[in-house]
């Protein structure tokens, strides 16, 4: 080395380190909070909640809260799973119709096949996991966009829901679920209420549990790190040894299972299953995830954000009803909230993580 006049040596003291760079400001605690993906959804849910609490009579009372949390829960359980999938860089358009399919599968097994309802629930969840695995396998195998693959699954399930239900029962719904053995106990766990006389839905507890589990998995486990990795840069993740195929298939199974759970909950709540249940909700799940800070391009987002996104939707739907407005307006409201929340998210993210080069 000594013969070379231009020896390059490392600077162990960090002379070239950015600590001496006067262009880099300090990271304030405020900026750290803004860096969280769910900040926009938190602000939006507070604004929407306060607005309806002031404007719509009964909205802020416990019986009112029981009402809109129930609506938010059945949106929130799949939305949280869809958020994880979106962070992993994929979409699942079959998540909505899957709610209806699993409700039908469970109801048919418990009524027409005469199975015990608990066995029917287990089989339904297994079925949902299989559909998710097939979605994931097809996406990874064909390398087609998941948007297309799950759109196909969506139509296949929608057609099967109607066709199979009509062929077996002669109607577009399966009723008589409350006659199945074990119904009362299963309803107590999935479709019941608690805290009389306000009657909060048990589904709210499932929603909270799913959100906490997803948040734990995403931020505290190795699997969560892989989810961010495969969504942020698939090739980089593959290069450092992340089992990308396994991660993505697991995520697709997660959304199908969350939709399956929701289908079971809804069917037990109303003691029957409709063939059209859940159709169209897949976009509401995606809306909740995006309002909650998920990037459409993957690699960024949070489960709590998606849960808050579902909460906003639930509050808006019930709030509009309580205000005495025509409920036809609720989708207009949802669209405006989506637009504002996403603009807020983008602005916050830009402020919080200005790139320095």
């Amino acid at each position, binding site marked *: 080395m000594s*013969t*070379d006049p*231009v*020896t*390059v*040596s*490392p*600077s*162990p*003291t*960090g*002379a*070239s*380190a*950015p*600590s001496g760079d006067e262009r880099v400001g300090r*990271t304030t605690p405020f900026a*750290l909070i803004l*860096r969280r993906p769910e900040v926009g959804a938190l602000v939006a849910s507070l604004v929407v909640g306060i607005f309806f609490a002031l404007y719509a009579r009964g909205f802020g009372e416990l019986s009112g809260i029981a009402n809109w949390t129930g609506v938010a829960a059945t949106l929130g359980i799949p939305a949280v799973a869809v958020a994880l999938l979106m962070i992993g860089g994929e979409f699942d358009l079959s998540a909505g119709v899957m709610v209806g399919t699993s409700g039908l599968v469970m109801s048919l097994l418990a009524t027409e096949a005469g199975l015990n309802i608990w066995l029917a629930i287990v089989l339904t969840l297994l079925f949902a996991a299989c559909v998710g695995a097939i979605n994931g396998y097809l996406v990874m195998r064909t390398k087609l966009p998941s948007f297309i693959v799950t759109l196909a699954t969506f139509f296949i399930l929608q057609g099967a829901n109607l066709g199979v239900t009509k062929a077996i029962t002669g109607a577009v719904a399966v009723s008589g679920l409350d006659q199945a053995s074990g119904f009362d106990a299963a309803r107590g766990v999935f479709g019941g209420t608690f805290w009389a006389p306000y009657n909060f839905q048990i589904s709210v507890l499932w929603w909270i549990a799913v959100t906490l589990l997803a948040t*734990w998995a995403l931020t*505290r*486990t*190795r699997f*969560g*790190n*892989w989810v*961010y*990795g495969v969504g*942020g*840069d698939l*090739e*980089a*993740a593959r*290069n*450092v*040894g*992340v089992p990308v195929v396994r991660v993505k298939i697991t995520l697709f199974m997660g959304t199908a299972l969350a939709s399956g759970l929701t289908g079971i909950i809804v069917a037990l709540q109303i003691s029957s299953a409709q063939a059209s249940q859940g159709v169209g909700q897949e976009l509401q799940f995606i809306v909740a995830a995006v309002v909650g800070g998920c*990037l459409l391009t993957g*690699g*960024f987002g949070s489960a709590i954000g998606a849960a808050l996104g579902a909460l906003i939707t639930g509050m808006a739907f019930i709030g509009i009803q309580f205000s005495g407005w025509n409920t036809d307006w609720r989708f207009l409201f949802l669209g405006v909230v989506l637009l504002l929340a996403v603009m807020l998210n983008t602005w916050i993210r830009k402020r919080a*993580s*200005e*790139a*320095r*080069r």
Partner: protein
Amino acid sequence: MSTQDSTATTTTTDAGGLPPLERGAVALEVRNVSKHFGNVVALKDVSCVVEAGKVTCVLGDNGAGKSTFIKILSGVHQQDEGELLINGHEHRLTSPRAARERGVATVFQDLATVPLMSVWRNFFLGSEPQKGVGPLRRLDRAAAKRITREELAKMGIDVRDPEQPIGTMSGGERQAVAIARAMYFGARVLILDEPTSALGVKQAGRVLRYIAAARDRGVGVIFITHNPHHAFPIGDRFVILNRGRLKGSWQKGEITRDELVHQMSGGAELEQLAHELQKGEPA
């Protein structure tokens, strides 16, 4: 490899199972390697030696066979002819994972890090330290952040906030994170694919410092570049590829900077070009 004892990593030892090689020992040797895709000969009879604690620069213009060469060394492609000796034993690397297990790590120019993820998450992506048992098995975040900070400090980078997204770091610093990561996970041979090509002059200088830091810790570095001005100050050995063949191989001291530039740029062709370009100008 995947589970680190959090107390064992505070020293300078690497986390991988392979003990470091003695400086100057041959870490990797390539003998008469050839590769063709269909009837296109991508690489023909290329040989070179990489020693621990030294920098081997592989130079070549676009299409010279640099990419094919790296991909064989990193296990993406397999050679059709010739031998690849790692630590004196012949190997046929069937996958990037197989290469990593034998201590050969590759840092690709654009595919090294995930921009939206934090520095510490990037550092450990794919090999996360864990603690706890059963369903409570979780990331050891505190250890991961501490090790990230320590390992980057060894490269001369002061990370104040390991939670910052790596996309907010400069291109040179991101390369440094990838280099530090490869070394922490036990690389004996570090392949750097064009680490300076997308960078400005100052940033490129910094990356050369990181390469020197890796070299001084006893790693055999393969530095792929098309810029002889980046290669010359740091290289201990220079290998020039041209149209898939070995055009020449020199030790440090056997070749001057001008000669290297001359060899690299096709020599006579460039003089011809300079001559042609001058014609139009008033004398």
